[in-house]
């Protein structure tokens, strides 16, 4: 079977851990040349090395997604070292649980910078880079089930993910009017067992079991599940899909 992303250049932000790391590896298995970005050079270099060890092509670029200068650097390195850019996965994200009344302005600004401004700059940079490529492209924004429904103690996080859901719709409309065209879709993961969750709630296996018990499919989500959904959205498998919300949450959101 031909590989779904043969020789296509894709930028994956937050590729150092969790969903982003698994996605970078999965896209590389499908032939993509992946620019893995993130803040930890050690983790980023190791994911690029893992991809290379499997016969894929990847680079790591140190990246603060809220920095315009960093985005310029990421695009320049992807274009010069991997080739014309086809896609961007805006995966980098922050998460914290804290009652509304105890959340400071600095905390709000911090999570907004990564989850909203970071993705906004990523779509903008992606549009420009895809235009230079001369071929149609695809962008996936990793939102959250909490970008569709509320959760007590996650007001700031829900606000950022709701903003990202809306950002995706408008970007999809603009992307459809561009030449070449850019599809823009959002993925809405439920509870996925990554450091983003364990960093807030701890990594006790009993907690994972509790999340699973509270999910209709009676299982915990894994980064591998998200990587497959991102592969569907970024590749030509979903060539007729834009502005869509794909929820992969074990059924939590159906309730």
């Amino acid at each position, binding site marked *: 079977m031909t590989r779904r992303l043969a020789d296509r250049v894709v930028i994956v932000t937050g590729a150092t851990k969790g969903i982003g790391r698994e996605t970078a590896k999965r896209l590389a298995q499908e032939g993509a040349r992946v620019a893995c970005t993130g803040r930890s050079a050690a983790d980023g270099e190791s994911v690029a090395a893992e991809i290379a060890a499997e016969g894929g092509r990847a680079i790591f670029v140190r990246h603060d997604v809220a920095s315009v200068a960093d985005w310029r650097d990421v695009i320049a390195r992807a274009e010069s070292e991997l080739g014309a850019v086809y896609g961007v996965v805006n995966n980098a994200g922050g998460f914290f649980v804290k009652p509304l009344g105890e959340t400071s302005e600095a905390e709000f600004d911090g999570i907004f910078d990564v989850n909203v401004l970071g993705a906004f700059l990523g779509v903008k940079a992606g549009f420009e880079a895809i235009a230079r490529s001369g071929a149609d492209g695809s962008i996936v924004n990793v939102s959250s089930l909490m970008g569709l429904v509320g959760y007590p103690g996650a007001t700031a996080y829900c606000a950022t993910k709701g903003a990202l859901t809306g950002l995706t719709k408008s970007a999809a409309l603009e992307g459809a009017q561009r030449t070449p065209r850019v599809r823009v879709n959002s993925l809405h993961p439920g509870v996925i067992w990554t450091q983003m969750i364990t960093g807030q709630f701890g990594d006790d296996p009993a907690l994972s079991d509790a999340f699973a018990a509270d999910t*209709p499919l009676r299982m915990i989500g894994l980064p591998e599940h998200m990587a497959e959904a991102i592969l569907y959205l970024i590749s030509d498998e979903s060539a007729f899909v834009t502005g869509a919300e794909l929820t992969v949450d074990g059924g939590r959101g159906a309730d």
Partner: protein
Amino acid sequence: MGATLKAAFFSLQEGVEAIRGASGHGAVVFVAPSSPLRSFDAIQSGLRLLARAAALELGPEGIRVNTVFPGPTAEVTRLGRPCEASDVAKAVLFAASDRSSFMTGAELIVDGGRMVA
């Protein structure tokens, strides 16, 4: 309208029995009629809730239920062409395969951006 929902309901019932009789876990994919999701269409709305309720009920036994919403097949969309059968087939394949093993109660919109605005 009633006939469409009734057909969906009883084909689900039969399908679930067949899945239970085989491996015990599996996937059901509904393909909705190709009409705009945003319109207050009784068939679409009925099917959406039918699928969500079924996803909740069948999830604990490992049977997933998802719905694909095709776009217009005779109208040029924002992506410059109508919906083709292969677009729907690819979404159905994703929803039916183990690639989406954590996905249930989801809606896959394959409409060329029709319902975005």
